[in-house]
């Protein structure tokens, strides 16, 4: 197959293409189990295979993909034909940043391949979770396991050839109950890093058992809790919501394709401008953020991106100042040219596609907030006069340029005079992105830092769901509107 791909790439180069790459998925497998109130509502598996071909011709992209490999030459020809049409309307001819040709492989760290684990073991884990969740006050309970294994072969006309095998495990569970006012409340666990590997062994029954007990306890507190006050106060974001705050208002606005206007038809733009790099005060001095695709054990670590660029660890925000972006090979060249200065010295290795049948675009890797020096959660609470601790993503809505946001969380805890006073329900907060991050007044230390997984980040047309991670500490922001 590789030989066939190589021959077809050569053929297109001979026809005037300036770059060709192919992503062949010999196999992608998934397995999902979902138990709802004890019923195994979903037991499914899937497999997919096929080829996606990307061609650069006269400064324009063409792409084609098919699940049938009967006529691979036709897929390449179709991609070239699409590029020829695209070349009729070019504004800024695509140029790719330099990179080395790479012949390499990447295997995500795993000890036990979940696809070798018997179904009975997976069911036993789910039943254990279901039993733990089946407690007084819980009206609905959901426990789910998702497993993915991708084998990807990347080849390009510059001589790169990369084999990747990536395995991920996503456990999730949720409990819901009807509160004293007849409203539904919920607590949930979303996948997060457990240990240093990404295989079946990352499912630690003891950890999940304890977490389930905590969430059921918190749900029962929610069922009799008061509503969130509607006022202005400090918010202390636990990793269970800080990851999403980071994702939506740092990660997305720093995707270079959004900044350059490539997502305006759908996902939106960014309030960040090219002239902001190096000078914009994004947040207080306590805010340092990096895109770290080298982080061990996270879906945002993948060895090499779909441009064939090795994984990197780059600063995005340094002590509050904007210094970097999430980039692929195409966008850095265009950004530097449009800014008339070299902002970016090369791709940051963040161009990824969700499947063989989708084209790579700028995607987050692990967008992490560095831990700070303000101690533990307890230390931060002690230093808070009027605040609310928030956890659990319930809803999120962000302005099209990521300039403002509104989040609802599963749970809150009222903080008065440095003490936690009780549980709050229907907790929400909103703000303007820059004002919010500039009000960052405390960042928790390593003990508060957790890597949360995101397995459903949507972007692009055709739409793509991507998996990534966020390492975040507990953070406190002041003068925030809550309860709306």
């Amino acid at each position, binding site marked *: 197959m590789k030989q066939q791909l190589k021959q077809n790439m050569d053929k297109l180069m001979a026809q005037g293409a300036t770059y060709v790459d192919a992503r062949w998925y010999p196999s992608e497998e998934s397995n999902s189990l979902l138990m709802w109130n004890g*019923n195994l*509502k*979903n*037991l*499914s*598996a899937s*497999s*997919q295979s*096929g080829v996606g071909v990307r061609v650069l011709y006269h400064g*324009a*992209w*063409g*792409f*084609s*993909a*098919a*699940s*049938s490999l*009967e006529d691979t030459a036709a897929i390449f020809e*179709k991609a070239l034909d*699409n590029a020829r*049409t*695209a070349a*009729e*309307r*070019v*504004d*800024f001819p695509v140029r790719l940043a330099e990179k080395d040709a790479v012949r390499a492989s990447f295997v995500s760290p795993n000890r036990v391949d979940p696809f070798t684990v018997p*179904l009975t073991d997976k*069911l036993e884990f789910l039943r254990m979770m279901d039993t733990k969740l089946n407690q007084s006050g819980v*009206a*609905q309970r959901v426990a789910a396991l998702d497993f993915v294994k991708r084998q990807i072969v990347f080849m390009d006309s510059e001589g790169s050839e990369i084999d990747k095998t990536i395995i991920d495990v996503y456990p999730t569970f949720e409990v*819901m109950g009807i509160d004293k006012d007849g*409203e*539904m409340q919920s607590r949930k666990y979303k996948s997060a890093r457990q240990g240093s590997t990404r295989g079946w062994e990352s499912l630690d029954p003891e950890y999940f058992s304890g977490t389930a007990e905590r969430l059921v306890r918190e749900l029962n507190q929610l069922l009799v809790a008061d509503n969130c006050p509607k006022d202005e106060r400090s918010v202390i974001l636990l990793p269970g919501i800080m990851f999403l705050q980071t994702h939506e208002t740092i990660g997305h606005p720093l995707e270079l394709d959004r900044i*350059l*206007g*490539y*997502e*305006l*038809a*759908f996902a*939106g*733009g960014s309030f960040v401008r090219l002239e902001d790099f190096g000078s914009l005060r994004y947040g207080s001095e306590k805010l340092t953020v990096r895109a770290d695709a080298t982080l061990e054990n996270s879906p945002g670590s993948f060895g090499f991106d779909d441009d064939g660029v090795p994984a990197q660890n780059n600063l995005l925000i340094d002590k509050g100042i904007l210094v970097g972006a999430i980039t692929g090979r195409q966008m850095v060249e265009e950004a530097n040219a449009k800014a008339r200065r070299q902002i970016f010295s090369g791709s940051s290795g963040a161009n990824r596609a969700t499947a063989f049948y*989708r*084209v790579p675009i700028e995607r987050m890797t692990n967008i992490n907030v560095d831990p700070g020096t303000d101690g533990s959660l307890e230390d931060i609470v002690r230093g808070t006069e009027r605040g609310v601790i928030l956890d659990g993503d319930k*809803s*999120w*809505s*962000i302005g*099209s*340029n990521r300039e*403002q946001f*509104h989040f*609802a969380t599963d749970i809150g805890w009222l903080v008065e005079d440095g003490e936690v006073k009780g549980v709050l329900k229907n907790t929400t907060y*909103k703000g*303007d992105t820059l004002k919010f991050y500039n009000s960052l007044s405390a960042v928790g230390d390593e003990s508060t830092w957790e890597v949360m997984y995101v397995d459903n980040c949507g972007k692009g*047309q*055709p*739409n793509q769901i991507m998996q990534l991670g966020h390492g975040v500490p507990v953070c406190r922001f002041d003068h925030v509107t809550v309860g709306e």
Partner: protein
Amino acid sequence: MQQSVIALLKELRAYALEKSLRAAIYYHEEDSYLMRFANSAISLNTNEHLVRLQISVYDGNKHADYEMIADPNQIEPLKRGIDTAAEMASRAQALSYTPSIPCYRETVIDMQAYDPFLAGITNPERLEFFNTLARGLETETIKLSGVFSNGITITAQISTESEHSQYFACTDASITAVLSHQKLKWEVNALQSAQAKTELNPEHLRAELAFLVRQYSQNPAVQLPLGKYTVVFGAAAVGDVLDIFNWVGPNGGMMKRGYSFLKEEQIGQPVFSPRFTLTDDPHCQATYPVSHDLTGKRRERFPLFEAGVLKAFFWSQDDADEFGREATGHSVYHNNLVLSGGEKEVGSLEELAALPREEDILYIPYIHYMNIVNPTAGIFTGSSRFGALLLRKDGSVTVPYNVRVTQSFEDLFGERLEWLSREQCAHNVSLSYGERNPRAIWVPRFICVRGVEISHSNSSY
């Protein structure tokens, strides 16, 4: 084409029967094309030809699914998929209810939503469409973005319970055209949904864009004070609200699980304004209907709200099995929602702007990034985007920076619902995160709601 698909399904059915399995086999084929524009250039031009096969095996109260994106010409891997599903089902945990396996009572060939002319549209035609709609509107600072997405979707089903099969073919196109100012960062858009090629009308999009660009270029932009406004929502805003409403509203399974803001005892009771009539109407061609659902039930016109009165919840087969209800023909890829029009004679934005008015009207054409804040209370939030206008009572027009709306469905469709336009249109709500599934909602071009709370107001674009 249909013969080869049905022949494949019959061969797989025969294999399942040989193995003494009870199985349903679902075929999905898409031939998708997407031309994407950004910065006044074609930024991407793609096509994907994908065949998906889902096999559902039933073993008493046990059930498992196996899905493949595979080569339909290679039959052996597909048969292995049946074996895998059977193996999984045999080891599954029994459900507390018996899931119904589809039994198709008649052979169905449904091509009502297929247009051979749209199916055959070419790269040059897609490009010409965009060149036409943008003619004379692009400048050095005003750039074109957008998407021309079209495709053919073929779905087919068979099960071991009968020899009959179902085959559906559909064509669709969804166009988004955006003009944005590179420096000022405003953006306006125009949308079109088509099931047939004759519905494609670039001149119509051009007229909408030209009007909006004129307003945004000539009128000052302002930060709106927070507070209550009379708001006219455009078709995209209404369609997107109804799309999310459909999910957490009259959905029987969601109601039983506590996610709906509606309760069963509200059936027959007035819930919204008498002006609000919402129907799931599989006869509305613009919404990409099919004649039968995935279990073989004939799709019928299904009133959800009539003059504000809740008429019924809809039940998929699985939810009906679990909760002991009668399935209502809603095991579907999507409903075919139709919000009835009203009596207001206003068919275009230009006409809306020209209407005499006694108060300021905030026009919100599109709600960006909507989400449910509180499902039980039916509260959603989202931001305005793409061409909002403040139509002042003195006849002048101001351009507002984006605002946030956090309201309940009752706030929108209850007693504050002032009027709905007589003219309706299709708003395309297709997403293509996975398989192609063209969806549209048929809505009034405009609805007017009093007292909408603006809870956040941007200070710039």
